[in-house]
């Protein structure tokens, strides 16, 4: 079973979200990076861009596949991980750390409560395995 840290929330599209004060940091889960394999390209929005919950905000590509990234919450992108354009492999190496993708200033606090808890995400992964 893939690593699912207890202090994060999750989407069904395999993004993680971490509350940091009034902001939310976003990345993809250990399960997602394992499924993708070697990440060789990450395309992120610009700082200042608006993202919408459950909508595509960027792209992560492995050697073989292109996968959309989905925003866990709506809001404004206040930070992006510029390191990923030079070192996309960071996503594989440190998924929940240096492999983060964007930081969002949420515009709708209610969306946070809609995200999956670690336990719900683990159950979701267990179902997906069958």
């Amino acid at each position, binding site marked *: 079973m893939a690593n699912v840290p207890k202090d994060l929330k999750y989407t069904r599209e395999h993004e993680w979200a971490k509350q940091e004060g009034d902001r939310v940091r976003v990345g993809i889960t250990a399960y997602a990076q394992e499924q993708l394999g070697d990440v060789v390209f990450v*395309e992120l929005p610009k700082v200042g861009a608006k993202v919408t919950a459950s909508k595509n905000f960027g792209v992560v590509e492995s*050697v*073989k596949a292109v996968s959309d990234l989905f925003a866990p919450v709506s809001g404004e992108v206040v930070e992006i991980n510029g390191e990923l354009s030079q070192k996309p492999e960071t996503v594989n190496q440190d998924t929940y750390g240096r492999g983060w993708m964007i930081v969002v200033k949420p515009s709708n606090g209610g969306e946070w409560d809609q995200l999956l808890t670690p336990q719900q995400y683990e159950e979701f992964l267990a179902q997906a395995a069958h």
Partner: protein
Amino acid sequence: MSDAPLKRTPLHAAHVAAGARMVPFGGWDMPVQYRGILEEHRTVRGAVGLFDVSHMGEFECEGAAALAALQSVTTNDVAALEIGQVQYSVFCYPNGTIVDDLTVYRLAPDRYMVTVNASNLDKDYAWVTDHATSARWRNVSDETGLIAVQGPKAEALVGRLADRDVTKIGYYRFARGAVAGVAALISRTGYTGEDGFELYTAAADTPRLWAALLDTGRADGVAPIGLGARDTLRLEMKYVLYGNDIDDTTNALEAGLGWVVKPAKGDFVGRDALEKIRAEGVRRRLVGIEMVDKAIARHGYPVQKDGRAVGIVTSGSYGPSVDKYIAMAYVETALASVGTELAVEIRGQAKAARVVRTPFHPSRVKKA
């Protein structure tokens, strides 16, 4: 796609036991990766890798008219083949588009073997038995296993296990021998741009040979390599892949395969069309492109010049050994020269690219 169960090579159990990620490919359940595509790619460029290519098809072609039969369905000149020699070739439709690409082995004066792509096996066998009827054909695919040993240490590894001096086998030549006690046709060919061999064996012997190569090659850093790295390795060499870069809509000349189209040998299926295309000049050409903007061009993405559609991407990925995003694309002939600035439309945006010299990575095949 059909719902038929996926076929398994003689090495299927070994792949599963090694923890490979298995995917459907051309009707087969095949390993796409073991430890990771990038690492496997670098293993082949830097040491030696083993590929299970037992899914590929092998036909034997025999009889006094075998040569004539092969000449009538292939574009290259089979008469130029000596016994022990291999030739790259193409089966064409009458309009010059491609049934499949293949290799022809001359086993004996009147006996040949043809190796074809797994995904085209049934179509190819129907094609040759319909169009090259003067020979006796036998589909030996199910009884044949095939392991490719590729990389700078391939010669040393195969040499240690072989009962003959494999350094004497030249590029696109083969010899019979035993490798790890397993009877094999040892062919100095491959699909990676590295030196190496393809070892044809009886299907039942293939797992024993695979295990011996892995065991003996440990000191060389040998590893099994999946289809993912096979694809990035061949892309860096601009080797075409049927279904991606060539198919029944692309002709052999625009695909850059003119070097194996030999109309002077006599008639063959597609000859008239290809002669006409050659005389008139191809309208588009398969070129290598490198992304200038950061983005990955993938199969089917449009190619543009100043906003105008001028071609299409056929294969593209990250090239691990060149450390660039590279692709192959058909573009209008006038835009095919090295240095031409183009764009690839990626998710609605024009991303800058340019035509570059190929292969993207220097070939290190052993040309005697």
